[in-house]
């Protein structure tokens, strides 16, 4: 490859040793080849544009779509006699009854009572007491404020329902996930590789796509919501806890093995206690993943705050959606802070930093008012049901007013930004991807995958491209791909600027990191609300929401990568008299390129997930097709094909980015 590259001035100089030249040449020639492929693509596109794009006319459906619809019908028809379907429905109805029972206990009326068994005062008191017990009084205050805000803004039942679905799913995810994490943490390399691959694929699937097949097998409502949430929440705990168990110091394991412990003793006395911190991190991620899926499960009629958000989004009532959306953020912050603080508190308690006797007495004393509140909430209606409050609608109106004023005042700015990105990036790229003949776009993607990632990227790409063609939504897939790529470019621009800034200035890092951490805990669904207010229901909204959603993780990855560059190297560069710009572009960024590629990979997947949800607010592409599948029964097959196409698209971009990353880091 290096022989084909144009000669560089440095190559002629004899004092440079050849191996260095070759090594330096590999990445740049790779990108040069990629550029060549793109140029060739543009040339052929100019000649053939608009032919064979495989765009479907409005109601046109392919045989595959019909076959999928038939499959759906056959599943529904076989509910009576197919044992597998019966089993899944059985599981689903069991979940429904668990959720239903919990709802009657704490959130909806338990007939013949006009109110739940335990009213809001009792539920809040118990939650606060739990916060106090696991994480101290600060968290107890946070929990109290959160629960009160549910009632004050008029979404008590929805908020508590969302918590119920989340907790049921997390409980089962831990029960199922921990043994798998142990298997992954203690199993041999083959077990580990198989599980990692499965988890990788799982995590490239956007949340939205889970829902249709799950609703088919487990039913809609609470059952579908719990199953989808459970499946989405499982990978983090398996992956993170498994990693924690696997990375327990080998010396300690050897030392304790040499004392003659059994395998069970090794697990319970050494591996699990030493991995405790990491396991709690996994639990935290699992909880937040569960919350975000439980929100989106509103699409399959799952109970909770997602439903009012969805209803308001459908009518583009930003203020209305803002209130339940903000409460979802409140829940996210509450859960995140509580799990994190509980872990720190537990650590302190385990090391003797907490006076156990005093703590027990304090909890017992605090239990008295809790019991009183429970009694009150079962006896008096004021303590059982939140009175009607006008805070919710008033806040919604205020938000609507604000955004009305904001968009009026800054219309030129938002519109200008939107137009600029559209003209410079979005339209040309969409034109290239979606108006190329399918064979051209497919060929170019394959070549790019090969050039950037070698066979390890090209083979999965071939499979995915074939799959996309098979499912008959090629054109829409290209539109979604365009949105994803544009979003990723914007994400990377943000990540580079803020990441480098954070890495170079501890002050900026200190100021931004909590914001980014908070940003990562918010379910993606919620991001749509403010962006929708700014840019209206268009594909652009989906892209910007995707950028906002993906930016925190990408910025953090870049910042950490740049920060990890050895200070000695940096010092050496400085001592040769580099400018700051040279320092960044010649040392820090090249040395952090592994993190950059990883950030791009994560950015792609996050933006893709959002581009799909954006179907709800007029983003078009595959996301819209999925929403259509939800909305109309006769379009189920079409929506399912779109969902599968999204999965393929996700795997494809992930594999190409990963392949490029592996080649780059070598």
């Amino acid at each position, binding site marked *: 490859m290096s022989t084909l590259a144009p000669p560089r001035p440095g190559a002629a100089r004899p004092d440079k040793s050849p191996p260095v030249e070759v090594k330096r040449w590999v990445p740049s020639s790779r990108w040069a080849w990629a550029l060549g492929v793109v140029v060739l693509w543009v040339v052929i596109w100019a000649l053939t544009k608009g032919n064979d794009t495989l765009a479907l006319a409005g109601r046109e459906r392919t045989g595959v779509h019909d076959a999928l619809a038939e499959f759906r019908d056959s599943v529904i028809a076989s509910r009576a006699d197919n044992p597998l379907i019966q089993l899944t429905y059985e599981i689903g109805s069991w979940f429904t009854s668990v959720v239903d029972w919990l709802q009657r206990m704490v959130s909806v009326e338990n007939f013949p009572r006009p109110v739940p068994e335990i009213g809001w005062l009792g539920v809040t008191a118990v939650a606060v007491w739990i916060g106090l017990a696991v994480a101290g009084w600060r968290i107890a205050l946070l929990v109290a404020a959160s629960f009160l805000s549910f009632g004050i803004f008029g979404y008590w039942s929805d908020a508590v329902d969302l918590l119920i679905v989340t907790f049921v799913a997390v409980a089962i995810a831990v029960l199922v996930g921990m043994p798998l994490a142990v298997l992954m943490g203690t199993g041999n390399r083959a077990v580990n590789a198989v599980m990692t691959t499965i988890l990788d694929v799982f995590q490239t699937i956007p949340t939205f796509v889970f829902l249709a097949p799950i609703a088919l097998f487990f039913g809609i409502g609470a059952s579908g919501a719990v199953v989808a949430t459970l499946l989405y929440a499982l990978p983090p705990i398996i992956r993170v806890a498994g990693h924690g168990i696997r990375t327990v110091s080998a010396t*300690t394991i050897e*030392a*304790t093995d040499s*004392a003659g412990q059994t395998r069970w003793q090794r697990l319970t006395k050494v591996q699990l206690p030493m991995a405790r911190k990491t396991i709690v991190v996994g639990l935290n991620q699992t909880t937040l993943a569960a919350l975000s899926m439980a929100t989106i499960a509103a699409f399959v009629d799952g109970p909770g705050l997602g439903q009012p958000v969805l209803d308001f989004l459908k009518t583009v009532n930003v203020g209305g959606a803002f209130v339940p959306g903000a409460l979802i953020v409140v829940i996210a912050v509450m859960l995140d802070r509580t799990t994190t603080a509980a872990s720190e508190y537990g650590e302190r308690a385990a090391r003797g930093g907490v006076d156990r006797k005093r703590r027990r007495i304090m909890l017992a004393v605090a239990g008295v008012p809790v019991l009183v509140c429970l009694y009150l909430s079962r006896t008096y209606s004021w303590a059982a049901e939140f009175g009607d409050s006008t805070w919710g609608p008033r806040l919604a109106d205020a938000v609507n007013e604000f955004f009305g004023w904001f968009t009026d005042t800054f219309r030129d700015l938002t519109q200008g930004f939107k137009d600029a990105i559209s003209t410079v990036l979005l339209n040309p790229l969409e034109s290239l991807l979606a108006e190329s003949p399918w064979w051209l776009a497919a060929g170019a993607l394959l070549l790019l995958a090969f050039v950037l990632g070698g066979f390890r990227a090209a083979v999965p790409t071939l499979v995915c491209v074939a799959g996309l063609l098979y499912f008959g939504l090629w054109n829409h897939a290209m539109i979604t791909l365009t949105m994803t790529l544009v979003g990723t470019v914007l994400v990377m621009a943000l990540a580079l600027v803020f990441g480098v800034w954070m890495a170079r200035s501890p002050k900026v890092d200190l100021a931004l990191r909590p914001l980014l951490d908070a940003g990562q805990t918010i379910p993606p669904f919620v991001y749509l609300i403010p962006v929708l207010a700014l840019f209206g229901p268009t594909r652009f909204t989906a892209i910007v929401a995707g950028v906002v959603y993906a930016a925190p993780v990408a910025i953090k990855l870049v910042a950490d990568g740049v920060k990890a560059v050895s200070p000695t190297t940096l010092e050496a560069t400085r001592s040769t008299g580099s400018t700051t710009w040279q320092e960044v572009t010649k040392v820090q960024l090249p040395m952090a390129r592994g993190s950059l590629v990883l950030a791009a990979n994560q950015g792609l997947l996050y933006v893709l997930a959002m581009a799909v949800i954006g179907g709800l607010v007029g983003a078009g592409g595959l996301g819209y097709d999925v929403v259509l599948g939800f909305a109309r029964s006769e379009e189920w097959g079409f929506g399912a094909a779109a969902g599968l196409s999204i999965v393929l698209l996700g795997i494809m971009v992930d594999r190409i980015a990963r392949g490029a990353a592996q080649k780059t880091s070598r």
Partner: protein
Amino acid sequence: MTIMSERVEETAVDEREPALSVRNLWKIFGPRADKIIGTPDADLPRAELKRKTGCVAGVKDVSFDVAPGEVFVVMGLSGSGKSTLVRCLTRLIEPTAGTIRMDGVDVTTASEAELRDLRRKQVSMVFQHFGLLPHRQVIDNVAYGLEIRGVGKKERRAKAAEIVSLVGLDGFEHSYPDQLSGGMQQRVGLARALAGDPDILLFDEPFSALDPLIRRDMQNEVIRLHRELGKTMVFITHDLQEALKLGDRILIMRDGEIVQIGAPDEVVGAPADDYVRDFVSEVPRSHVLTLKWVMRAPRPDDSMDGPVMSCDTIVRQAAKAALASEHPVRVVDSQERVIGIVDDDAILRVVVAEEDHA
């Protein structure tokens, strides 16, 4: 070499059964490693074996005995296979071939339960990087071995407290490992190994991670404990000074093979080959060699008025008295027979020769 064979005879004369006996031990890492032993490939140097079969020989055909109460040091540079060897002894690494017997038990054929029992009661190990449990207090780290045997909490804590005090950690029972210095952490490691009252202690470079002063303290600690408790010890190190200081006998390893086994003075006085000679060249010889290494045969005209000293006296200890006397030293064996003469020249040769080195 004659001296070495004498030594072997001496050990053979010892009527007690050896505490540890290793015969033809092999450890080869890699695919189908067991097929290599017994073929000509087994004799290949490491690099060639790796190239030809993809396997790496960690331990090659090693045999030795350790007497009860002996401190047996295995010394070698990194990659010599010494750490692999010590792990094979309790099958933390599964040996490829050979037999290991400890107090009459065949370790190599022991079932998993028997092996566990052996590790719990007969032999324990101290590690270079301590391997302590960070989530447990010192006392519970020390009691860990007793805990997994099923000893009750009260009893095991009482026993652990005793051992903690034995290794000089009084007052730190309830500290956590990360609150202790490296030297103190290794004292915890030592206490943990002693808590189960094993017959044999294995040390895998226990003091390599410590700074020199602490290392010296810890070496003295081991010497003290050995004197008080009389345990059999197998001690791995890459530090020749440490080996000479602690070892009753030293096994020098290179590329998985035994180069020499002998007492400290034998290793210094009669190195088996250039490798060992090079190794010991910097050693202050007067600190290690005994009079028998510097004496000459008595002649009829030798004065019989000089001081009498045992042939096992170290040169440095004999030097002052020998130089002070006008007559040469008469060296006697254990039966009080005069077996040699050491004059001032002989003493000075050892002392001055090493000053040349310096």
